[in-house]
């Protein structure tokens, strides 16, 4: 039974219908989904929301480090332990390789053949060859355990070639911050979706309300969302380095609530709203915004 993602049923996450369509398309075509977008727009949360709505178990999150090789995500061969055990081995049969092969996160996800979401976070942090090494694995959802000698292939519980199941719904979500350029063959294999900032004020309001809980007054949330949209638009016009995004907005509303700021205080004209600096990430952005905001009539 194929499940469809609507983008509207998760507890705290909403996406526009186009993005939900792309998620479903990626699952149907069995292609990985490359998600790009501003930092703070909820790229990582998308994987959790999809897993939650479709009833899968927790998404398997793989945080890519700059020293990672593709093999490290699939399996681990504990050569050192085998060497240590070999000293105390009583029989020849104990010197096998297969007990020392353990599957890592991505390998386990492929082997288990259960529907799941795999999240490969910030792939542009890795080495430039890393995405190319992953190409074949993501394409066919199968890999070889190279360290396993051929004669032990049938003794190993995983076998030499670990394959996924074609009929099982698996979604691989890859996020990228565009720090480095990704290789073209990799880009061509993935489906590309850009996660937009929710410009629609109704959607933004809904996201804020869902994330903040019921003890926040609706008046505060409405005023904050309205003011935030204005700040964001003028920040973008002033060309700050990083415009405030969804996560900054939610944190700001929490600060306002903690300091018991009233919704009306935000809507005062000719004054920057309280704690507006919390929306920006660098001192230079704060200066740029302040310079631009005070010149407005």
């Amino acid at each position, binding site marked *: 039974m194929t499940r469809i993602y609507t983008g509207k049923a998760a507890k705290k996450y909403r996406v526009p219908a186009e993005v939900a369509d792309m998620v479903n398309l990626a699952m149907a075509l069995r292609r990985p989904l490359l998600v790009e977008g501003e930092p703070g727009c909820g790229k990582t949360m998308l994987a959790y929301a999809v897993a939650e709505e479709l009833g899968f178990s927790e998404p398997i999150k793989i945080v890519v480090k700059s020293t990672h090789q593709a093999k490290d995500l699939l399996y681990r061969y504990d050569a050192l332990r085998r060497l240590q055990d070999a000293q105390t081995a009583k029989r020849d049969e104990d010197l096998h390789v297969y007990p020392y092969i353990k599957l890592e996160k991505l390998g386990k996800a492929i082997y288990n053949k259960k529907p799941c979401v795999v999240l490969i976070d910030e792939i542009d942090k890795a080495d*430039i060859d890393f995405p190319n090494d992953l190409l074949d694995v993501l394409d066919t959802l199968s890999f070889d355990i190279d360290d396993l000698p051929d004669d032990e292939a049938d003794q190993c519980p995983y076998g030499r070639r670990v394959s996924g199941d074609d009929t099982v719904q698996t979604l691989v979500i890859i996020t990228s911050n565009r720090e*480095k350029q990704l290789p073209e063959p990799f880009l061509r294999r993935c489906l*590309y979706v850009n996660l937009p900032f929710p410009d629609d004020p109704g959607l933004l309001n809904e996201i804020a309300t869902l994330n903040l809980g019921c003890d926040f007054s609706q008046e505060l949330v409405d005023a904050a969302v309205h003011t935030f949209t204005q700040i964001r638009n003028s920040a973008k016009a002033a060309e700050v380095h990083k415009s405030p995004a969804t996560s900054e907005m939610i944190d700001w509303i929490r600060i306002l609530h903690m300091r018991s700021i009233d919704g009306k205080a935000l809507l005062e004209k000719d004054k920057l709203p309280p704690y507006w600096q919390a929306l920006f990430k660098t001192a230079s952005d704060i200066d740029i915004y302040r310079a631009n905001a005070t010149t407005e009539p």
Partner: protein
Amino acid sequence: MSDDAVLYGLFIRLRQQGMRLAVRDYLDGLRALRLGFGVSSRGNLQQLCTALWVRTDEDRRRLALMFAELETPTDEDVQRLIGAAPTGQSNRPTKNTGPHRQESFAQPSPQKGRSEESRSVTFDRPGGDGIALPRSNIRLDCPESFVLTPPAIVDSRSLVVAWRRMWIARRTGPRTELDIQATISTLTHRGGLVEPRLVAPRRNLASLTILIDASRSMAPWLDVIPHFETSLRQSRLAKSAIYYFDNVPSSQLFQTSRLTSPVPLQEVLFLHSGSPVLVFSDGGAARGRITRQRIIGTRDFIKNAKARLYPFAWINPVPRNRWPSTSFEQIGHLSGLSTFELTEEGLIQAVDVLRGKREVRR
């Protein structure tokens, strides 16, 4: 059925415009249509094509432009298109029916009153067995009707790939890596393991010094210069440095691309002696003249530098066919210099010279 035809037409047209699409992309598009994606509305179809085929901003604009030009076909048009679609040997449209088909399609439009004064529908002449798609000759209102972003000559990634070829691996430094072979032989000799044998890990000892010409004649390639800096950071070289000079490296080099923070040339040669050097300059080829002073100055610099910095390679961003009868041609002849163009192959060849793998006299 008609969606398939539109998809095919889009695919062919995009490929003709230079977008890199493969058969696999088209087949995936067909599968998506069968599964029900992109069929409900034109916007949906555009989204589907964007997600499947678009990877750069320029591609996105091309696709948007193409959709804006695409005339929404009426049912009658669709029926004629389906009828004209090649279904095998029996139904091949020959070239003779091409222009004839154009006339017959042009007729229904005025009768339906669909065409306004500024709109007229033409049909592309099919190439071979292709299906003609209607295309409206409307004036486009979309703001970005021209795609004016030039393709990057060389991007950061190709530079990184080139620098990564410079790899001189030696085991140096503290011993932190397990040497399995030595441990096993100690084990067999002594009959028991007292402690594992360690060895120093392999490190890259390659170094590189880049001298970049930041004068006014290099203005067309101003946006390539920052890529050198960013790519060196990811290059895993043991030691790398960039210096800038103005036209001819004289007694001093500069540490910034704006030609500030001077460093005496002798100091640079001393600091980086033994390192390969790459010069990135037009060498007079951009102006297209022969300037005696420049030739002599450059020749003296090369002679001076080659004593300390070796191997020596020169990358000239001006295309090779513009080198004859300029100062640069003379420079290349005089000093027996290895010169290359600024392309991906030129970069790889230059780096091969710097590795000592190839001696080229051009």
